[in-house]
């Protein structure tokens, strides 16, 4: 059974034939793209004109996201920016603390039990001139139920007095840098860092394993994929115990599940050898819509949390250097074993010292286990300089840069964390491409919203949220950005032979757009409307989710 879709325009990303008017699909795969006349040669077909006024692109690929974006929407959204939930509702950004409180009061009114927790997420006080939220602010919402708001960064939690009281922390004498105290000697309600957040977090309704995604969350995550034109998305750090894998296999196998999910096994909590063994086992469980067997190694922390590892001269504000989350010995061991066994690693490095360590370990590992096409990928890699990009190219590494970060925290990096020069080179997309490093760009959803067209806009315009252009010379062309969110990301996952372009033999994965991203003003790229997706030949209109 062949279906030929007509379109206003098809952007194929196939260099031999960049544009077409029709695409023929059989058994979920692409027979070819071209004119109707050319495609008619494949035999009997049904002409589907649903997209005749739309623009078709290859299904977008998000190379660094977390499926927990779907889960977080069961909590109350109090972020600064407008954001769409899985059901398509746009939540208006809360522009000041009062707006945050109003939103919580509404949510509070909908919970019947007086003592049930009220969890919320995506607070970011840097947009409130860094005015800190306090427990007294949240006590205005309720003094009987525990309330907690996770910050957008995921590194800080704000709670009310009741939550502190339940956790036994509404007391004086606490001496912990993660627990700031007020003039009264009691905690202000701000809790910094996961170890400090956990003892209170469980009382405000945040689940045990914040990175874990439950069944409904995985379903909702796929809805967000459809709304943003994504047909393949990574779940970049998961522990993947058997029960989670079974759940994911079941959910993604459902005939209406609209996305291909690529979960990576997170290195924490197991030894290097256990990690390798688990990845090898996962690889055998892989299906078309759940691609298992890749490894994620977290090397350092985050720049805005001052836990990233920076080379000299370190943080602009003089903060001490950040934290290692793996030893060089273990990293080397995991890299060597993965090269030897053909496993595929993505590393999280934010600071340039962490990136340097990965490059050193790769150089050593490749001497011992030469691998011509390993495609190990540096994720975030926000502070890499040109010399490091040159080494990546020589070592055959890919990079997936955090283009969205620039918009949300670029001003913070400029003023506080790394200072003007290095803030200007952060996420140096142009330098990566100039040096021939295969490149993707990402959202790290839920840290920033899932939406590759927005991510592409960030890389093309490099505007910060205050409206400043930061890094004029690191801007990339629109065509390069569109490549990065399709074939570029697919390449880092070794899926570029299957997805990322519209050409014969590939999966029938399409992003269906209302506007033509090649024709809009680059400053409007983020406003290109998404109608929905086609995944494996199945049509998913966003309006029907």
């Amino acid at each position, binding site marked *: 059974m062949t279906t030929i879709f007509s379109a206003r325009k098809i952007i194929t990303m196939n260099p031999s034939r960049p544009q077409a008017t029709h695409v023929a699909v059989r058994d979920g795969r692409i027979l070819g793209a071209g004119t109707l006349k050319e495609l008619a040669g494949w035999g009997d077909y049904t002409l589907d004109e649903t997209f005749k006024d739309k623009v078709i692109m290859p299904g977008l690929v998000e190379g660094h996201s977390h499926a927990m974006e779907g889960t977080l929407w069961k909590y109350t959204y109090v972020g600064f920016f407008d954001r769409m939930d899985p059901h398509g509702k746009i939540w208006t950004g809360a522009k000041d603390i009062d707006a945050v409180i109003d939103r919580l009061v509404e949510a509070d009114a909908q919970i019947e039990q007086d003592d049930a927790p009220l969890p919320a997420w995506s607070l970011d006080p840097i947009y409130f001139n860094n005015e800190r939220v306090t427990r007294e602010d949240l006590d205005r919402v309720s003094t009987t139920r525990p309330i907690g708001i996770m910050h957008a960064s995921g590194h800080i939690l704000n709670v009310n007095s009741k939550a502190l009281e339940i956790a036994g922390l509404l007391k004086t004498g606490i001496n912990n840098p993660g*627990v700031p105290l007020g003039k009264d000697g009691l905690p202000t309600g701000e809790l910094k860092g996961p170890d400090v957040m956990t003892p209170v977090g469980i009382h405000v309704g945040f689940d045990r394993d914040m990175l874990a995604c439950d069944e409904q969350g995985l379903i909702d995550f796929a809805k967000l994929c459809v709304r943003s034109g994504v047909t393949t998305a990574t779940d970049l750090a998961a522990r993947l115990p058997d029960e989670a894998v079974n759940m994911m296999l079941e959910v993604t196998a459902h005939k209406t599940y609209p996305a291909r999910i690529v979960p990576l096994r997170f290195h924490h909590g197991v030894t290097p050898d*256990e990690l390798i063994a688990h990845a090898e086992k996962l690889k055998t469980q892989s299906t078309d819509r759940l691609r298992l067997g890749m490894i994620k190694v977290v090397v350092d922390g985050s720049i805005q949390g001052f836990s990233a590892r920076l080379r000299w001269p370190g943080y602009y504000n003089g903060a001490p250097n950040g934290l290692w989350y793996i*030893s060089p010995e273990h990293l080397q061991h995991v890299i060597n074993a993965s090269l030897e066994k053909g496993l595929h690693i993505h590393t999280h490095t934010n600071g340039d010292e962490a990136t340097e*360590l990965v490059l050193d370990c790769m150089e050593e590992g490749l001497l011992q286990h030469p691998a011509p096409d390993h495609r190990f990928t540096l994720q975030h890699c926000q502070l890499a300089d040109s010399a490091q990009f040159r080494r990546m190219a020589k070592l055959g590494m890919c990079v997936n840069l955090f283009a969205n970060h620039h918009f949300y925290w670029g001003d913070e990096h400029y003023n506080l964390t790394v200072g003007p020069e290095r803030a200007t080179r952060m996420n140096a997309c142009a330098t990566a491409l100039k040096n021939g490093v295969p490149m993707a760009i990402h959202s790290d959803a839920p840290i920033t919203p899932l939406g590759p067209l927005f991510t592409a806009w960030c890389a093309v315009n490099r505007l910060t949220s205050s409206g400043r252009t930061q890094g004029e010379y690191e801007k990339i062309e629109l065509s390069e950005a569109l490549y990065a969110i399709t074939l570029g990301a697919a390449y880092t996952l070794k899926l570029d032979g299957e997805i990322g372009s519209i050409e014969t033999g590939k999966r029938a994965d399409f992003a269906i757009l209302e506007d033509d991203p090649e024709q809009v003003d680059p400053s409007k790229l983020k406003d290109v409307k998404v109608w929905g997706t086609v995944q494996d030949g199945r049509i998913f209109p966003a309006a029907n989710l």
Partner: protein
Amino acid sequence: MSTKPKTPLTVIGGYLGSGKTTLVNHLLRNADGKRLAILVNEFGELQIDADLIEAQDDDVISLAGGCVCCSYGNDLIMAMMDMSKMGPCPDHIILEASGVALPAAIAGSVSLLNDFAVDGIVVLADAETIRNRYNDKYMGDTVSRQLSDADMVLLNKTDLVSTEDCQTIHAWLSDVTSQTPIIETSRCAIPAAVLLQDFGRSDIAPATQDAHQTNNFQTTLRVPDGPVDPNDYAIQLLKEIPGLVRAKGFVTSTDGSSKTIQLVGQRIEITPAPADATTGVVTISVCQASSKPDGE
């Protein structure tokens, strides 16, 4: 809020290969009736001597003498909270930090939990490699921060270096860690009491005020003449007893109340004493004349 007594917890830190696992096994073998709970990042890292293991499932290994070993994986605090719900309470918890962790940060987090009291931070240094680690391009500052977090440093594997080198390293380490007591060990052989001593139990209960000297450590019982300021008294002990590494006991405070004094290295904790407390403080100190233990 919980009113049950807090379980003492010792954080063991130190870079990879410094002997943390050896120390854990040594403590398990010398627990002397104490029920220890060992918390490790991941089981695979901790090679518990097979003869100590009685039963094992995914999260908990049951060990001889009522001890247990739990892995905390990627969420230490959650594992601690689970442990506080588990019965019966262990007598002492040993938390083995990962090789790149900063032990004071872990201790700071644990201190937020109401069921546990940080007893001390012990950091191991491998006599053979510590100086190279300290100067390592990537790990140097982490190793330095680990050492400065310590209440007590075990300079371990002294049997693998010459006496002369050992002295040099000891002197260098003293410079780096300033006031922190440094104890030389080989294969982590150290009297368990130095880490686990708990006044009122039988592990060290000198009947008299005579000093006991074993294995380069000296134990004394001090009884103040009358009421004292507990904090001043603890500082006084540090001044008077060279090589003091640990002290625990009860004194009558100047306000008439009975207080528990607990001292590990430079860390001093003063808390209300239990009702039946008898005045007296047990001290453990390293004999100053010694350098390297004889034998292995």
